[in-house]
């Protein structure tokens, strides 16, 4: 069997919380095991405070797990002997895009910002030039190369942040609720870029989100609640269990919900759907026009 790109084994992460009276230990992530294959597009779904962001930060070594092991390409990153170079190598391999586009752009000019990562890696300037141009082309922002980031829209800024990660030539990108602060147009732009990177460049994508519609676009959905994985599978299988999802404060995509409602109320609709087109087709067949 081929080796998993990311392998998480019984990982827990505990932090101290002060509730005003005493300090109590709380698990943000509890005994989680997960394997992600190379080139996979995985969505991690969970409501606020479910531990999904913590999980992402553990993979990128921003946090160190309290217990358990994490392997990336077979390398144990929880090993205490990881040198600074190893950590840099890891962060180059697994890039991360955050929630607030404003808080991850460093430079005052778009192309300088995209160049920030490769510059830190000590790449020769001709090579940086090429990478910056390629990365901007990948996210469709070439014509904004000389703009100032603060004049761009949220979706555009987030695409610049993605370009900044692509320029380091990562094999995997983690998106930590990267669409949460964007308007619908910006969300669509960013999602298109993410899907394109996954399909065309075979970049492994781990997308943390709480939007059901976005999770439905992934190859695989992992649902996290209270620090534990409660469901893992193809979107269509995960969203089948609508009740379970609702119990942990989540919902299902609107079209899935529509089909469920129709079948409960006596319509002759069988099967599942997670996208609008197949939903429309199913209703069309059920109506039997």
């Amino acid at each position: 069997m081929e080796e998993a790109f990311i392998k998480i084994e019984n990982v827990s992460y505990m932090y101290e919380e002060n509730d005003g009276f005493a300090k109590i230990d709380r698990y943000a992530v509890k005994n989680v095991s997960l394997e992600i294959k190379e080139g996979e597009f995985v969505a991690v779904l969970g409501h606020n405070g479910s531990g999904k962001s913590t999980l992402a930060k553990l993979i990128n070594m921003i946090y160190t797990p309290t217990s358990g092991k994490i392997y990336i390409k077979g390398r144990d990153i929880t090993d205490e002997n990881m040198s600074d170079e190893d950590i840099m190598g890891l962060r180059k391999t697994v890039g991360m895009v955050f929630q607030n586009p404003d808080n991850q752009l460093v430079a005052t000019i778009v192309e300088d910002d995209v160049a920030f990562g490769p510059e830190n890696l000590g790449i020769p300037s001709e090579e940086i030039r090429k990478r910056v141009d390629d990365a901007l082309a990948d996210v469709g922002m070439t014509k904004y190369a000389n703009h100032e980031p603060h004049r761009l829209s949220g979706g555009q800024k987030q695409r610049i942040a993605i370009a900044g990660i692509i320029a380091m030539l990562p094999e995997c990108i983690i998106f930590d609720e990267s669409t949460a602060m964007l308007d619908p147009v910006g969300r669509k732009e960013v999602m298109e870029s993410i899907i394109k990177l996954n399909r065309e460049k075979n970049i492994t994508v781990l997308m943390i989100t709480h939007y059901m519609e976005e999770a439905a676009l992934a190859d695989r959905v992992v649902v996290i609640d209270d620090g534990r994985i409660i469901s893992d599978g193809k979107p269509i299988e995960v969203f089948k269990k609508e009740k379970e999802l609702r119990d942990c404060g989540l919902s299902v995509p609107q079209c899935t919900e529509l089909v469920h409602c129709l079948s409960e109320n006596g319509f002759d609709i069988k099967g599942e759907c997670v996208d609008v087109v197949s939903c429309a087709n199913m209703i069309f067949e059920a109506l039997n026009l």
Partner: protein
Amino acid sequence: MKNIAFGQYYPARSPLHRLDPRVKIILTILYIVCSFLCKNVWSFALLAISSIMLIILGRVPFKIILGGLRPVLIVLIFTSIINVFWTKGEILLLEWRFIHIYLEGIFSAIFIIVRISSLIIGTGMLLTYTTTPIALTDALEDVLSPLKKVKVPVHDFAMMMTIALRFIPTLVEETDKIMTAQKARGADFSNGNIIDRVKALIPIIIPLFVSAFSRAGDLATAMECRCYQGGEGRTRLHVRHMRFKDFIPLVLIVVFGTGLVLLNIFAPGFTMS
């Protein structure tokens, strides 16, 4: 608020805008030295002509330059009055009770005006009007890089400057939002005495600081994720190479300085006391 302009940069296409910012920093320092070399009428005249030529070369409208001189207008008037009334000389122009005005006094007032305006025009034309703040920061890092040998954290300061420049518009926008939010809750920023107004600023400053710190935390994490480890081993997208034509202005300023000194020595005329 979004279109806030940094500093005084005036976008235009001119030889001064194109000049390597590192050269411009050195030129500015030399130009300041030159302005203090002037001693007599002829050298001050050359200094005045050089500033006018810089304005023309940089294609910045005179109106903007005059606007830049306005803040020092009081200083200019004040020093010239002192010079006119208090300089003693040989050629007496006017005598009325205790007031004695000498020709030398008039000249030294003019000299002072020319010197101060040239200093402002020179630094403005060579640096602030024609160089973007970010180019200036980069260039300063380069010019000061010899100090790295004595452990001055030049790169870190340049990085801090860059981030500060990057976040000015973001924080301005944020202030705007907080003010609107507080106004919506009935805050009043425009009435009352000075103490009331200062007090009214507290509910703006506190949330602004809180958000600035959380932004700083986020940015630090994002920078670490992009493998930032300080200046060591870093390369640059834009590498500036000094070309032959970048040395020409340096030669010109040396010639200019020598010219001033020669005029001081060989051209007779009123000398600054």
